[in-house]
């Protein structure tokens, strides 16, 4: 899923300071799972903002609403009846949700309340780790299900590099060397012959190398 983290409260306050009535919109998907922007976090942020502004001698009005998905026009449409009554919108969704609101409601200022981080998985309760960089041409089939793009600090195709020590990456003893993991797993699976094959230079045009990407499914597109 897409992971995110709430922005520092002072930054959020500065965005909305000039406004009186705010619509605070959460999203029920990824940001709910990573506890950054779901209904609960909307309630928490709303409460914090009310108190922080009161302390500065200002009372603001905050309307709270959480959409099923903020990156889908159908759901974003739900806000129509609320938008006119507010001066600005604060979104707790990932960057896609924020941009969808900004696209649909052109005349309203829309501000992000979270920093969108990466595509990650939960390592355990409360801990999320980067797992995929959306490179557009997945290598996991030859790297034993461990991603060298998202998890090797140097994005090496044929690792490990000389910095790999005792299974850890040279950037930090807390970071596993992706290529050490790949090697160990290939060994366990009896697939070390895959490791002998040199992975050619990657075609980054499948990734961000060719500008913003789009998926069009002719069978589904209207």
């Amino acid at each position, binding site marked *: 899923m897409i992971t995110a983290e709430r922005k*520092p*409260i*002072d930054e959020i306050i500065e965005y909305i300071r000039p406004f009186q009535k705010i619509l605070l919109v959460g999203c029920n998907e990824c940001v709910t799972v990573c506890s950054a922007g779901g209904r*609960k976090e909307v*309630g*928490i942020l709303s*409460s*914090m903002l*009310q*108190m*922080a502004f*009161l*302390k500065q*001698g*200002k*009372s603001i009005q905050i309307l709270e609403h959480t959409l099923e998905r903020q990156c889908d026009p159908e759901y974003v449409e739900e806000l129509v009846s609320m938008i006119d009554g507010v001066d600005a919108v604060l979104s707790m969704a990932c960057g896609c949700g924020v941009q969808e609101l900004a696209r649909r409601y052109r005349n309203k200022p829309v501000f992000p309340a979270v920093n969108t981080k990466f595509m990650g998985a939960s390592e355990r309760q409360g801990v999320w780790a980067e797992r995929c960089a959306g490179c557009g041409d997945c290598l996991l089939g030859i790297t034993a299900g461990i991603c060298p793009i998202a998890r090797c600090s140097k994005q090496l195709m044929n690792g490990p590099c000389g910095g790999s020590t005792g299974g850890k990456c040279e950037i930090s003893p807390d970071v596993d060397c992706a290529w050490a993991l790949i090697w160990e797993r290939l060994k366990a699976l009896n697939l070390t012959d895959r490791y002998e094959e040199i992975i050619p230079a990657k075609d980054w045009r499948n990734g961000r190398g060719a500008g913003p990407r789009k998926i069009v499914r002719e069978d589904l597109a209207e």
Partner: protein
Amino acid sequence: MTTQEPFEPVIIAFCCHYCAYTAADMAGTRRLCYPANVSIIRVPCSGKVDAIHILKAFEKGADGVYVAGCLDGDCHFKNGNHRASRRVAYVQKLLDDIGIGAERLAMFKMSAGMGERFAEVAKEFTETIRALGPTPIRSLHRDAA
């Protein structure tokens, strides 16, 4: 409130049904005195107390809030009290962020039999909050209205 009146803090205590709430009951049956400032909200487990419950208490004018759960290792639901402690620490940071002050929120642990400890905690926390003075939020609500 005029400045002459002594400050009587409003304190909300989220008490776990299995320990702190029962301890409060025991304090009552043993006729132990503790300050009337503390309003108890009984929760099924201290782990049930969410960040938003605590923040709402402050937003609505509490001067101090504490969560009281079972002793370590004694939670009826295994680890609700650990979760509560971690959540309290998290909300303490949020309170610091908006200048309310982490020290207005606390976590206590006690067993159902610790009526005296319940009364003592209520007394001590009330004194701590009394020393800190009123939270700005309540009077600000009035001014901003």
